[in-house]
């Protein structure tokens, strides 16, 4: 059993319930022991960072402080939400980089009787732990019902691959680790060029047309890539693309139907769980037609999703050779 300190974040019990349920379901099989820290507070998302330096970082650092206090060995703090993960990592990084600022944050924490030794915890996103610690071999070993035939678009979002203070991912722009995880579940992973583009975050509240355009780009690109579903690792991304897809369609007078679920959910069904037990059914853009195509749904609907037509490729002629990508893994990105 690998034991980690766990910071769930505000969405897990509300908009991202499916993430929570599916994570619960797969933790056991993966040997993942997540210990929720007691009495954590909201990380402030992107809002609180825009107030001022010390209060913003102190708000986040309170969580680091209590996590450090509550550990019984593990020095790794895991967060499933991209924004929470980045905020926690950012605060730790800022305090380490500038000891003077770190002292200032600790002076604020002291007013609440708390203290955090900058750099003493490793902050990691849930996907990072599953891919790099649990490992793809261990994941593959749990797959009893491979997702063959299910075309997935791996949507990693922006805050996990960037800025990536600890350099966990191979590229800020085009990382393939998430693709490999989904491939390990037996799925057909499509080439999704916008995989690290932003979903718009809180723009749905601040400037809806901007948000709708950003959501539209992602949904359009996934559709053209031939995906049956998008898979994500962030509650905000899932909410934007799922809950706001209807409004987006209304705004642009389009009729996209691109379901988006959490990666733990597809892991769950690949591990043999019933879809409803890992949160399927809560999404507003119904994923069941896609599941139907690979025969994996309980009688919710008989409708089978049409296979999305891909953009026709140019016919292969006797053209010029492409640059070799054979040694791409050694290229310093």
């Amino acid at each position, binding site marked *: 059993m690998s034991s980690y300190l766990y910071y769930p974040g505000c969405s897990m019990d509300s908009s991202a319930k499916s993430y929570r349920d599916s994570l619960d379901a797969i933790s056991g099989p993966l040997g993942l022991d997540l210990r929720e820290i007691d009495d954590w507070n909201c990380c402030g998302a992107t809002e609180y960072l825009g107030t001022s330096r010390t209060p913003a970082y102190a708000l986040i650092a309170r969580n680091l402080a209590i996590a450090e206090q509550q550990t019984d060995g593990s020095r790794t703090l895991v967060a499933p939400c991209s924004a929470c993960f980045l905020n926690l990592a950012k605060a730790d990084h800022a305090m380490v980089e500038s000891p003077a600022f770190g002292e200032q944050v600790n002076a604020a924490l002291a007013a609440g009787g708390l203290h955090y030794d900058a750099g003493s915890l490793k902050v990691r996103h849930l996907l990072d732990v599953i891919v790099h610690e649990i490992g793809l071999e261990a994941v593959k070993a749990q797959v009893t019902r491979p997702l063959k035939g299910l075309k997935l678009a791996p949507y990693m979002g922006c805050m996990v691959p*960037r800025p990536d203070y600890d350099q966990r991912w191979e590229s800020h722009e085009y990382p393939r680790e998430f693709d490999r995880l989904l491939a390990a579940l037996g799925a057909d992973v499509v080439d999704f060029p916008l995989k690290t583009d932003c979903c718009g975050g809180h723009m749905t509240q601040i400037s809806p047309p901007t948000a709708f355009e950003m959501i539209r780009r992602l949904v359009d690109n996934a559709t053209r890539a031939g995906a049956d579903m998008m898979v994500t690792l962030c509650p905000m991304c899932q909410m934007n693309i799922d809950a706001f897809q209807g409004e987006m369609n209304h705004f642009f007078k389009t009729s996209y139907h691109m379901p988006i679920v959490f990666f733990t959910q597809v892991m769950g069904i690949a591990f043999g769980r019933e879809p409803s037990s890992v949160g399927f059914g809560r999404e507003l853009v119904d994923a069941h037609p896609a599941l139907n195509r690979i025969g994996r749904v309980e009688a919710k609907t008989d409708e089978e999703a049409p296979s999305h037509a891909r953009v026709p490729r140019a016919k292969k002629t006797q053209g010029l050779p492409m640059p070799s990508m054979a040694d791409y893994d050694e290229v310093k990105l």
Partner: protein
Amino acid sequence: MTTPAVSPPETGAGGPAFLAEVMRATPGNSRLDMCIQCGTCGGSCPSAMDMNHTPRQLFAMIRGGMRDEVFRSNTPWMCVSCYYCTVRCPQEIRITDVMYTLKGMATRGKKYPNSTAPDFSKAFISNIEMFGRSFEVGLTARHYLRHYMTRLPAIAPMGIGMLRSGRIGLMPPKRIKGMDGLKKILAKAKDLEAAS
């Protein structure tokens, strides 16, 4: 998009002092003074089309000491924190962090553009400072009632869908146990920031 006008001397607090102020308020070394105005940030930004000024333009204005125009710009509020600019900047400037700083400075100076962003921010913040957790339904409802009354009918299906699947709760979140401590921490933090 507005064309920034030349700042008249009366606006005060111009010149290199403004750039220094912005850099001081940003954690770590933002390297904002190393900008070569190449435009990578403006080219990368997914919301640039809706900004008054591209990020690059805003930095040129900061260097020009155009304080008022910078605060009146909606640019920092339209930033989605996607960090494309930060990782691509050839001078390794921490652009996203600078955007956060500008939001804070604009709010404190009570000068910001006519946009719903600062208001949303305030609502979110007050929830945190009351409960220690965020309160999505309350936040969204309040925000829509204030700003997007006409959109309420359009958003109704989404709201109902979310309610049905249990993805939003109507009740405010339970206050964290350490709320008093958190309040003290934030108060102290605000004092320290003001003094630094």
